[in-house]
């Protein structure tokens, strides 16, 4: 936040800090230092005071030291030459008899972000690792990780790694956990810290000494350990049993995740663990902190994917509190819909019914949608409620109810008669046009007033803005014409005339022309084309619900994945799933594992799934293509398929690869730009044939791949899929 006169302020502070009178008065001096930090927090650039602050660091007042260090860490990289002056003081402090001063100095020295720091901090860190005060050891252990991150590309220092492994046996619990963290960072490229049997058992035995934060972190590290035998497995599980009931939600959930992973071959154990943790999970759903509530609800939803019955008796816990924020209420309603059964359906519906008149239209519509989903199983009760809501004559409610009617008719044909009756009664004030038109067109034979309602729409066509409504109106009118020709013929004619002659929207015009030509072919032909199935009960959401295996979601359990909500941002959930640093490391560490969740390396390329996602504009593509580096360039070894380019495009589309642009078939060099998405990354690629710069291979196709963010696994998968398609096409065309 830039302030007016900030330069003046800095000058004034500088004057004050260098004033000997101020320096003599400790309290006043400290006040000025505090002021500097305050401005720094507000975003003001006070780096000009670096010299004065370095002077201020030579003090016995620890509180003042801390403030000055905070300042120096922030600006050290901007003023590396001045920061070197401070290092002497810091190194002197590292040898102070007071462990607090030693730790403080060491921690801050490691936080300096400037090149060449390593040579100054290496010796104090090594000394700190052997310090007799645990406070200093804690700092020194993390200092190793900081030192490594200063020069991420240098070789790993074997002696430090060994020392850190030895410090895993330290009596201080925080030192132990810090060692794990530091090793994880330093050995990131090699797959992180190795958890072998002695380390795992040592950690398990230390669990009781750790505080809750350390416990949940150690539990996460233990995820990568695989017990050698069932006996060992059950020993571990019984050691951890008490943590499932921990008062800290984060420990209970981390333990559950470990249970689910370790006992993946023992479904009964998994079920027991889930049952045990259901109490703490439910408690978080009612926690005072609403953020914690939300996290709890998201994880309950995940558990319910495999064990829908687990929370059945606790359905009342998911009734919404009136003061809860909307995003919590949405989750609760989603859960309630899943929990409905014969006993509680009346109560749940009554509860949902009371949300339908909520002041927030989004919430009301979500509640109606929830009732609509329950209606697919308990149609009678729900229809009464939905019909009752229509009487309120409020736009957002009516439109949501009609949409639900449409879905209901589609999924449960048996409720058609009842819905038609209701629609018949309420159509005097139609709101949601598309859903209503669909209902009228599809079931016009059962709604006596249908043609008149539709006529109202056709008469008001000039003022209708939405082209989707117009398209739906065309289809519905044609359908209506097929079952009630006498009443519809005239208005259909008017509608077609308007849409063909006066409509400016090309899509609507084309649809109208299509209808017109279809009708020219005769009624029977039209009937064959226009009328499809009137319902599809097989798609019903509730009846078709499958219990997923736990392994489907166990890997994202207790991560940000369930919280970031797939519907909100489609990429997020996938990213977090793919992004786990541990999973890839696990695979490399445990090649001999026979666990079902891990696939052998040969399968992984097949496993990759591509998706189209939202389309990319040419400009975006071009910008990204220029920004990114080529990650892989590969010669395919065969020429471009001799099929038509449309066929190529269609074939690529089939495997979810989108073609952005290509040069005409005969040009040399021939180029095509394609893109796709996979587990959170966007892959861009160029196909090139006949490159002048690389003569000799001009007959063969070259693919260059760029990607954001980088995921080599996805690239390999993409290239192999692409290769497969092109080869298939080649075989077909020859």
């Amino acid at each position: 936040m830039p302030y007016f006169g900030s330069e003046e302020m800095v000058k004034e502070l500088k004057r004050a800090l260098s004033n000997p009178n101020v320096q003599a008065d400790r309290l006043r001096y400290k006040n000025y230092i505090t002021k500097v930090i305050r401005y720094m927090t507000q975003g003001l650039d006070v780096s000009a005071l670096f010299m004065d602050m370095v002077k201020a660091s030579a003090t016995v007042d620890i509180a003042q030291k801390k403030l000055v260090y905070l300042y120096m860490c922030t600006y050290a990289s901007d003023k590396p030459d001045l920061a070197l002056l401070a290092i002497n003081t810091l190194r002197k402090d590292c040898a102070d008899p007071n462990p607090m001063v030693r730790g403080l100095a060491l921690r801050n020295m490691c936080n300096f972000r400037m090149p060449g720091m390593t040579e100054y901090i290496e010796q104090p860190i090594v000394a700190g690792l052997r310090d007799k005060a645990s406070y200093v050891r804690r700092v020194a252990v993390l200092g190793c990780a900081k030192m490594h991150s200063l020069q991420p590309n240098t070789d790993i220092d074997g002696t430090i790694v060994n020392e850190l492994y030895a410090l895993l046996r330290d009596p201080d619990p925080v030192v132990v956990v810090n060692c794990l963290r530091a090793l994880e960072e330093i050995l990131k490229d090699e797959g992180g810290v190795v958890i072998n049997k002695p380390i795992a058992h040592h950690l398990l035995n230390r669990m009781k000494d750790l505080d809750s934060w350390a416990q949940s972190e150690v539990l996460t590290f233990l995820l990568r350990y695989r017990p050698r035998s069932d006996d060992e497995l059950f020993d571990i599980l019984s050691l951890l049993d008490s943590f499932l009931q921990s008062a800290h939600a984060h420990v209970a959930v981390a333990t559950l995740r470990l249970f689910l992973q370790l006992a993946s071959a023992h479904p009964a154990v998994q079920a027991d663990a889930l049952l045990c943790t259901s109490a703490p999970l439910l408690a978080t759903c009612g926690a005072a902190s609403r953020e914690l509530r939300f996290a709890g609800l998201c994880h309950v939803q995940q558990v319910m994917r495999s064990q829908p019955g687990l929370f059945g008796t606790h359905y009342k816990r998911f009734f919404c509190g009136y003061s809860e924020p909307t995003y919590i209420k949405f989750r609760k309603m989603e859960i309630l819909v899943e929990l409905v059964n014969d006993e509680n359906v009346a109560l749940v519906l009554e509860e949902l019914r009371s949300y339908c008149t909520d002041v927030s239209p989004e919430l009301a519509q979500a509640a109606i949608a929830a009732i609509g989903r329950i209606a697919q199983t308990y149609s009678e009760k729900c229809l009464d409620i939905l019909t009752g809501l229509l009487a309120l004559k409020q736009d957002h409610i009516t439109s949501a109810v009609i949409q639900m009617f449409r879905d209901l008719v589609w999924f449960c044909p048996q409720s058609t008669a009842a819905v038609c009756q209701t629609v018949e009664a309420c159509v005097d004030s139609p709101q949601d046009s598309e859903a209503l038109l669909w209902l009228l067109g599809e079931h016009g034979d059962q709604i006596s007033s249908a043609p008149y309602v539709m006529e109202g729409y056709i008469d008001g066509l000039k003022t209708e803005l939405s082209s989707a409504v117009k398209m739906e109106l065309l289809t519905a009118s044609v359908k209506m014409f097929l079952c009630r020709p006498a009443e519809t013929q005239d208005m259909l004619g008017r509608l077609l005339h308007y849409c063909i002659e006066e409509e400016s929207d090309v899509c609507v015009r084309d649809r109208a022309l299509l209808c017109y030509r279809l009708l020219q072919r005769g009624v029977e032909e039209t009937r064959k084309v226009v009328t499809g199935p009137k319902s599809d009960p097989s798609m019903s959401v509730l009846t078709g619900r499958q219990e997923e295996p736990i392994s489907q979601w166990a890997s994202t359990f207790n991560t940000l994945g369930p919280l970031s909500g797939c519907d909100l941002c489609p990429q997020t959930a996938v990213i977090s799933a793919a992004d786990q640093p541990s999973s890839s490391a696990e695979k490399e560490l445990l090649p001999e594992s026979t666990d079902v969740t891990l696939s052998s390396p040969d399968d992984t390329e097949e496993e990759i799934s591509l998706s189209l996602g939202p389309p990319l504009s040419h400009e975006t593509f071009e910008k990204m293509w220029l920004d990114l580096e080529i990650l892989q360039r590969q010669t395919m070894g065969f020429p471009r398929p001799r099929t038509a380019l449309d066929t190529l495009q269609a074939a690529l589309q089939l495997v979810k690869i989108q073609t952005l642009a290509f040069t005409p078939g005969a040009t040399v060099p021939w180029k095509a730009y394609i893109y796709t998405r996979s587990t959170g990354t966007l892959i861009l690629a160029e196909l090139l044939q006949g490159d002048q710069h690389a003569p000799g291979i001009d007959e063969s196709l070259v693919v260059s791949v760029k990607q954001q963010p980088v995921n080599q696994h996805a690239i390999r998968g993409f290239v192999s899929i692409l290769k497969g398609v092109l080869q298939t096409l080649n075989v077909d065309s020859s």
Partner: protein
Amino acid sequence: MISQIFILSSKGDHLIYKDYHIIMKHFRGEASKDSINVFYEMVTALSGDQTPVVMVHLCSHKDLHFIHVRQGGLYWVASTKTNPSPFTIIEFLNRLAALTKDYCGSLSEKSVRMNFALIYELLDEMVDFGYIQTTSTDILKNFIQTEAVSSKPFSLFDLSNVGLFGAETQQSKVAPSVAASRPIMSSRGEQSGKNEIFVDVIERLSVVIGSKGVLMKSDIQGEIRIKCFLPTSSEMRIGLNEELSIGKSQQKGYSSAVRVDECRFHQAVKLDEFDTFRILKVCPSQGEQTVMQYQLCDELPCAPPFQLFPSVQKDYYIVTSQLLFFTFSCSTALNVSITVPVPKGSVSMSQELSSPDQTAELQPKNKALLWEIPRFPGGAQLSALFKVDVPGLSSASLLEVGPVSMSFELAKQTCSGLQIRFLRLAPTQTGLSQRWVRYVTHSDSYTIRI
């Protein structure tokens, strides 16, 4: 692993900003501070149905996740580039807010602004390189040097707050409500440095009462919280009701036993005497901590605290009369507010209230009328008659009246019946220490269908 921690005011001012991670240097300088602004823009642009707890900022290098909680009107935000446990981060941020409250006395923009040096110091010790080191006050107190600046405005009205929570000790003295909101580390020699310990039994009640007065859902989430100002910790024994039974299986006939469904304890609590004598032994560390959490579902040992007898008639106006009855005789309800939804398009309202201190107003924007009773004595009965003018009234409009929701605070009362029999400090404790036991019940959600 946490990359940054920052605290923002509700207006987006930067109060505290700490960047832990060196990886951030990839977009250091202007951009690293920028992430605060990115966060604030994202959080203020959210509509009500979007989930603010986790937000993703897609940036060039690697996605930055923001996780935040709101406490005391402030945003407490952690950002991370990895995929950590959301429970850990959220609980940590809550703990940070609680510690800030312990150290600064209260939690507000002002207290954070005044004590920013102290909070930086706390953060420095709590998190190193993005890893949580410790959050225990016992350890932290050795390292924290800065003293809190307490922000207590002088106010004449403070006196009226005396006895907001009743205290039931042997002397039956009354602790002023503000007594517990002061910094745990106060400068020596001041009058505020009293050796005090507060044990609070706090229950949150969520109740749904059906249209015919039937109790449809009742749910109590309770906790015993200790706020300790003793300089040194020694073992304390907390005696609960001897007849307390836990779990459904132990219920014996129609005895008047106090029952909870399940309970969980802080890991420092020693339970060796709990099974036989219902005594918790704990060495409280300075500051606030929750020693026991319990919950009770569906079977309240007493009648719900409020009974509402509403009647709604459709006339030219909608007439609703509400008769509110407070069933607890020995307690007082404070800040009772009742929200009655009214049909859309209500324009005006006339009211008849049974006593002058009550207020009622129509809030057309929220489609509701708000009836407020600042103080509701035990066993009393209040009535109100509202006439709401709704143009274009139809019989369907009555559907929109209800459900009524209430919020209130009950002092000196727990709904589960859980009591603290005694509170004993170890005899080694030197100096005089004052012990306070307070009971309070909050309405988490109290809904009455019409």
